[in-house]
C-alpha cells in the first residue's frame, strides 16, 4: 500500500516541478547579466539532478508495477538467488582432482541457473519496453527544453571522444560548457543504482555473477540495519 502512496506522491511532485520549470524557463529573457546567467545555470544543474532522481524513481516505479510485485518474478528471483549461492559454494569447495560426476553435476546446475536467468530476463522485458517508450518521450521533451543551453561549467576539459556528448548542440569552442545530456547521464549513473540499492530492488551479486554481469557484479539489494 505504501508503494501506491509513494508512486502517487512522486508523480504529483514530478509534474508539479516539471510544469513549474517550463514556466520558469519560458519567462527567461535573453541577454542577462553574468550573475543571473550563473544563477540560472546553477538552477539548471539542480533541476537536472532532480529530473534524474525523478526518472530513476519513475523507472523503478514502472518496473515495480509491471514486474517486481508479480508472483512469478518473486518466485524466479528467489530460485535464482538460491541456486547462485549454492553453485558459488560448490565451486569454491571443488578441487582440480574432483570426479567427473561432480563436475557434471555443477554443469547441470549451471544450465538450470542459466535457464532461470533467461526466464527472469523475459519477465523484466515488459517493463523495459514500457520504460523505453516513456523515456524516449521524456528525453525528447527535455532535449527540446534544454537545447543549446549551457547547464553547467565543467572544471576540466573532457576527452575529445566525450566532447561530442558533453558539448552536444552547444555553440562556441569552450569545451568546459556542459550540455544537458552529459550531466543527465552522469546523474543517472550515480543516482539510479543508489536508489535501486536503497529500495532493495537491485539483483544480488551472486545472481549477476552467474548470469555474466557487465563490468562485474552490481551491488546487492541490502540495507543497513
Amino acid at each position, binding site marked *: 500500500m505504501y508503494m501506491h502512496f509513494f508512486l502517487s506522491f512522486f508523480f504529483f511532485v514530478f509534474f508539479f516541478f516539471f510544469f513549474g520549470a517550463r514556466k520558469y524557463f519560458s519567462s527567461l529573457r535573453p541577454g542577462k547579466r553574468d550573475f543571473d546567467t550563473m*544563477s540560472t*545555470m*546553477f538552477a539548471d544543474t539542480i533541476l537536472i539532478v532532480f529530473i534524474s532522481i525523478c526518472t530513476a524513481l519513475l523507472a523503478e516505479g514502472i518496473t515495480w508495477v509491471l514486474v517486481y510485485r508479480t508472483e512469478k518474478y518473486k518466485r524466479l528471483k528467489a530460485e535464482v538467488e538460491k541456486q547462485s549461492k549454492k553453485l558459488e559454494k560448490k565451486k569454491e569447495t571443488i578441487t582440480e582432482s574432483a570426479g567427473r560426476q561432480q563436475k557434471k553435476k555443477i554443469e547441470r546446475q549451471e544450465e538450470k541457473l542459466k535457464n532461470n536467468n533467461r526466464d527472469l530476463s523475459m519477465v523484466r522485458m515488459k517493463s523495459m519496453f514500457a520504460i523505453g517508450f516513456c523515456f524516449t518521450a521524456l528525453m525528447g521533451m527535455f532535449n527540446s527544453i534544454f537545447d543549446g543551453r549551457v547547464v553547467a561549467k565543467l572544471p576540466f576539459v573532457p576527452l575529445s571522444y566525450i566532447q561530442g556528448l558533453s558539448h552536444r548542440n552547444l555553440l562556441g569552442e569552450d569545451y568546459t560548457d556542459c550540455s544537458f545530456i552529459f550531466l543527465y547521464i552522469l*546523474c543517472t*549513473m550515480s543516482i539510479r543504482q543508489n536508489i535501486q540499492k536503497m529500495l532493495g530492488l537491485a539483483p544480488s551479486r551472486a545472481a549477476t555473477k552467474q548470469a555474466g554481469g557487465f*563490468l562485474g557484479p552490481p*551491488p546487492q539489494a541490502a540495507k543497513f540495519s
Partner: protein
Amino acid sequence: MTSISKRKEESHLVNGGVKQSTWSKAFNSNAVWEEKDEFLDVIYWLRQIIAIVLGVMWGVAPLKGFLGIAIFCIINAGVLYVYFSSFQQIDEEEYGGTWELTKEGFMTSFALFLVGLVMSFKMYKLLKYNKTS
C-alpha cells in the same frame, strides 16, 4: 586482547543472539563478517560517501583538470584498501581478490564524484561572484 580472542568473543555474542548492527561493525576494527555481501555493501557505501565528500571539496578548492580526478581515484582506492586490509584485516581471497574489492561500486562513486564536483564548482563560482560584485 588479541585479534583472535576478540573475533571469538564477537562470534559468541552473535551465537548468543546479540547481533551487532552493520554500522557498528563497519567502524570496529577486525569485525566478524558472516555474510560476504554485507561487507561488500559497506565498501560500496563508504565509496559513495568518499565520492560526495571529495566532489564537494574539489569543487570548492577548486581543483581543476584531470589532476583532481586522478587524485580522487587514488584516494578512493587507497583509503578503502587501507580500510579492508589494515583496519578490518579481512582475507582478500575470500572476496575474490583485491581487484574485486577495489572495483566494488567504483564507477557509481566516480559518477557521483563528478556530479558533486560540477555542482559545488558552480556554487563556489556563484558565491564568489556574489561576494566580489
